């Protein structure tokens, strides 16, 4: 893994991967949508079950993105790799986007059953807190002027957040059981019947690859911008 740590090798790798990633993403999303939209309505939720194909992949990608961000932060902090810091920084806005999408499609999906746009359901709440973790991370990056210190500060926050994530997840689930008595129908995921499984899997993989392709491109952008800055500084 460390071999790709130097930017030029990374650029070469990323450029090589791009067509495959883009192609796979389009294929997967296309197939997922084609299958998903023609799936029979669920006996209980009717058409809205189709929102599951957006909500679950987005939520999964958001969690995965935070994991990758924390891993990149760890590498950046321990082995002092500026590329890893850039990778973590590039992942955050995408992670925040997928979290927000997960929240939105989640509330749309639950709307018919719960009769309200926002319900303090366990999953949605923990994703709201995840969104705050992302926003805090991005805010810290922008607040600290010096780039190397910002990278390390954000890395520490990402790691502290990662350690806390399971605790937050547990406390929110515990919290929903606490308030169970107050007539909130637990919007647990429906028993995923076979026919729904395939589109869901395709969409989840498609979202994941979409994230990776955007992520790699954003890292490339960061490297190119940094190079432009050094050229400007030296050229001056």
């Amino acid at each position: 893994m460390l071999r790709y740590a130097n930017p030029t090798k990374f650029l070469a790798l990323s450029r090589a991967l791009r067509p495959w990633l883009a192609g796979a993403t389009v294929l997967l999303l296309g197939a997922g949508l084609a299958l998903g939209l023609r799936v029979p309505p669920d006996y209980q939720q009717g058409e809205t079950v189709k929102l599951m194909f957006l909500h679950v992949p987005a939520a999964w990608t958001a969690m995965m993105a935070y994991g990758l961000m924390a891993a990149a932060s760890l590498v950046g902090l321990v082995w002092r790799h500026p590329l890893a810091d850039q990778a973590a920084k590039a992942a955050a806005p995408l992670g925040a986007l997928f979290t927000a999408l997960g929240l939105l499609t989640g509330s749309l999906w639950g709307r018919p059953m719960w009769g309200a746009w926002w319900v303090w359901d366990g999953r949605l709440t923990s994703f709201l807190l995840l969104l705050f973790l992302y926003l805090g991370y991005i805010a810290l990056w922008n607040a600290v002027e010096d780039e190397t210190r910002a990278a390390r500060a954000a890395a520490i926050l990402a790691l502290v957040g990662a350690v806390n994530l399971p605790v937050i997840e547990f406390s929110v689930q515990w919290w929903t059981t606490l308030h169970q008595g107050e007539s909130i129908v637990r919007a647990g995921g429906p028993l995923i019947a076979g026919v729904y499984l395939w589109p869901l899997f395709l969409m989840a993989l498609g979202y994941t690859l979409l994230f990776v392709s955007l992520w790699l491109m954003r890292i490339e952008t960061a490297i190119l911008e940094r190079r432009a800055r050094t050229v400007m500084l030296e050229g001056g």
Partner: protein
Amino acid sequence: MSALLLRDVRLAARAGGSAMLALAFFAGVATLVPLGVGAELPRLARIAGGVLWVAAVLAALLALDRLFQADFEDGSLDLLALSPLSLEAVAAIKASAHWLATGLPLTLLSPLLGVMFGLPPRALLALFVSLLLGTPAVSALGAVGAGLTLSVRRGGLILPLIVLPLLAPAVIFGAGAVLEVLDGIPNGALGLLGAFSFCACVLSPFATAAAVRLNLGS
């Protein structure tokens, strides 16, 4: 060791210090909520645990962004870093001084405010114990945020944003402890809160010290 603790607590307790600020804010929120929500005591009692817990956390956060920044700006932090104490010890002492100056007074004041929310005596005790157990975690995790935003001029603005998600479990378990008494259904909130607080207090100094260390290099 205790010299630093005493100094910080004395500095916080003095007129310009943060102790009074946190108490005033806590009492302020506790008096405003009934004005907003309405005076029916049964309803207030229901939300008392949550409201007072949230108010206590926010009050504690008020004093946090100056926890390291004051010493950072006047050069004291350099000297603290050169002391025989490790930075982790300094971080732990700073967090404890913050708890003594703000967390503890908030906890002592909470039963009085709980009465204003119509909480029965046993619930007042639960509120008191939950804050006693939970406020150290607020100081510990808050100190991490204070360390991270050390070199940010208006660090105070993003400190809550960074720390609040981390404190969600404390608020959930803290308020849960009060509900446990009100509903009479044991839910183990205090045990979970104690565990969370213990882990936060033990682990946070390492993250705080790392955050301070990277800012010393400036």
